[in-house]
């Protein structure tokens, strides 16, 4: 069983909600990045979403843009991201999802990517700018190597379209809570529950909700209706300020309290 599926099963059985942490691989350099990841995984993160740094991250806000830039300047590339996964995988069994832009994967080669990623211990891949219509590019290669292709759903996605794009999705659905790029927001959208109800009506997959979650309080609000909470920019900001462990614990606790 794919580690992702196993994780959801375990969470469900324990009656808990998931905590998905996004960190940019190689930010600010490979060594510190690895330390940050270990710190996050040690403090209760359920699923690691590892950003592959790209020169032109058009779906990302300023925090992740800056993280990508730092990572690129420290010399990070996709091969090294996979090396990093390999090292993490030796000590952790949380699922790891690569999060990246299609051009890097295209240039690396989809078949080669799927093979190398699976071998390194990756469990799923989320290609932020590869929508359902273009999934043919990569879907077969991922499936052949047992990797989940994680689908994105957005507030702009109609119910009809949701049915279509989730028809062959796997692992979980990443629901983008805001219309906007990644980055911290002031509050959680009020109609989240209704939105998720629509999603639940068309898919049995667990739903992770992200884009904009900043702190424990918001995480708790999201966890009230989602299967998991994704936090990214806020973690990166905390990591660079030396507060990563604290924030991870805060969010973990808030999520757990929200459902107890």
């Amino acid at each position: 069983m794919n580690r992702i599926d196993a994780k959801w099963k375990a969470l469900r059985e324990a009656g808990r909600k998931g905590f998905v942490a996004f960190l940019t691989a190689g930010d600010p350099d490979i060594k510190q990045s690895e330390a940050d990841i270990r710190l996050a995984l040690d403090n209760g993160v359920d699923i690691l979403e590892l950003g592959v740094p790209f020169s032109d991250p058009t779906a990302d806000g300023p925090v992740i843009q800056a993280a990508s830039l730092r990572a690129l300047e420290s010399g990070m590339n996709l091969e090294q991201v996979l090396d990093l996964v390999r090292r993490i995988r030796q000590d952790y069994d949380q699922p790891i999802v690569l999060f990246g832009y299609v051009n890097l994967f295209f240039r690396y080669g989809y078949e080669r990517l799927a093979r190398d990623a699976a071998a390194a211990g990756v469990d799923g891949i989320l290609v932020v700018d590869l929508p359902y219509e273009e999934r043919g590019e990569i879907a077969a290669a991922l499936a052949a190597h047992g990797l989940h292709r994680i689908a994105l759903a957005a507030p702009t996605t109609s119910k009809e379209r949701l049915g279509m794009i989730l028809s062959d999705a796997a692992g979980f659905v990443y629901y983008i809570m805001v219309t906007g790029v990644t980055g911290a927001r002031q509050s959680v959208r009020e109609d989240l529950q209704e939105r998720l109800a629509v999603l639940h009506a068309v898919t049995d997959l667990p739903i992770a909700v992200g884009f904009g979650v900043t702190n424990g309080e918001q995480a708790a609000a999201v966890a009230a209706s989602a299967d998991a909470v994704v936090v990214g920019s806020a973690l990166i900001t905390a990591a660079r300020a030396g507060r990563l462990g604290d924030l991870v614990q805060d969010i973990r606790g808030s999520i757990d309290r929200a459902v107890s």
Partner: protein
Amino acid sequence: MDANQSGHFGDFGGRYVAETLMPVLTEIDKAYAEASNDPAFQAEFADLLEHYVGRPSPLYFAKRLTEAWGGARIYLKREDLNHTGAHKINNTIGQALLARRMGRRKLMAETGAGQHGVATATAAALFGMECKVYMGAEDIVRQAPNVRRMELLGAQVHSVESGTRTLKDAMSEALRAWVAEVEDTFYVIGSAAGPHPYPTMVRDFQRMVGDESRRQFLGISGGRLPDVVLACVGGGSNAAGMFAAFEQDTDVKLIGVEAAGYGISTGKHAASIAGGQIGILHGSKSYVLQSEEGQIQNAHSVSAGLDYPGVGPEHAFWAQTGRVAYHAVTDEEALEAFFTVTRLEGIIPALESAHAVAEAQKLAQEYGADKSIVINLSGRGDKDMETVLRIMKERHESH
């Protein structure tokens, strides 16, 4: 040829965007298909092109260039005479009409040379819409007069400080901004690039450039077609509009002219086809300037409108099939051509257009006086005077 239903020209094109934007792209695709078949839409577009933009633009026989180069007869398609000074306005009027049809009251755009920004701000003023333009901080300096024009027209110009601070980053930033405002804002893309249906739509909204040229040339020549048609290629909109009309005329040689900057071998250029590789940038698959690993590389061109590391997917397709040949011209050659056209014809060309002229000059002598070359003079060079004079001054001082 037309893109297939999913927006692909052969291996190229497509819609490589985050899910948030997919619904709007589908909506635009549908609205555009309807508008294309709506005579009322086409009539309003045609009326504005004639009375507002000033179309048809002339096809001008450049006697003194012809004499000076001593070869083929040279014709200039005078897009520089359009309202706002370049071909860009054709497309922005088309997209603004579509936006209005879709009930959007806000426009946004990226811009490099500022021509597309001005053209979008103009269309916004004409239709009483709001307008935001994203422009690289570097280009804001290079193309100062256009920034002032946009502001006078009531547009908000956002200075983009990320990356190379040029067109590429302006477009990335515009895509980010669009995601956040997609529900009431129409993104007016300025070239035949971006996700489907933009490359098709922009080409179609520029196609009158080629259709007119073809008709005008047939009229002038008593039924013959030109031997060569040249256009500069940044994102590729003026070239696509020109080439689309001649695509089926297989005797007509089509040449797209990219910006070779300091020279392709220096790595400092903007020639995505001549010096790039297949990749995915800003929503479509095409030729892209990138590292081996797929990181997008900085383009360089003296001309802000060509200073972009990608190219529209239909050009990639045309390059692959061989229907269009793509050549590249250096900064130096383009500057030379800028002065040649200015001094011999009294027409100050855009630096972008000067690239096409420079290539034509190389070809003219290979052809006899019984051959004809049509150059798309995509815009006027008023916006480039500061740049050209600065370069001249720097050269002068370094001597």
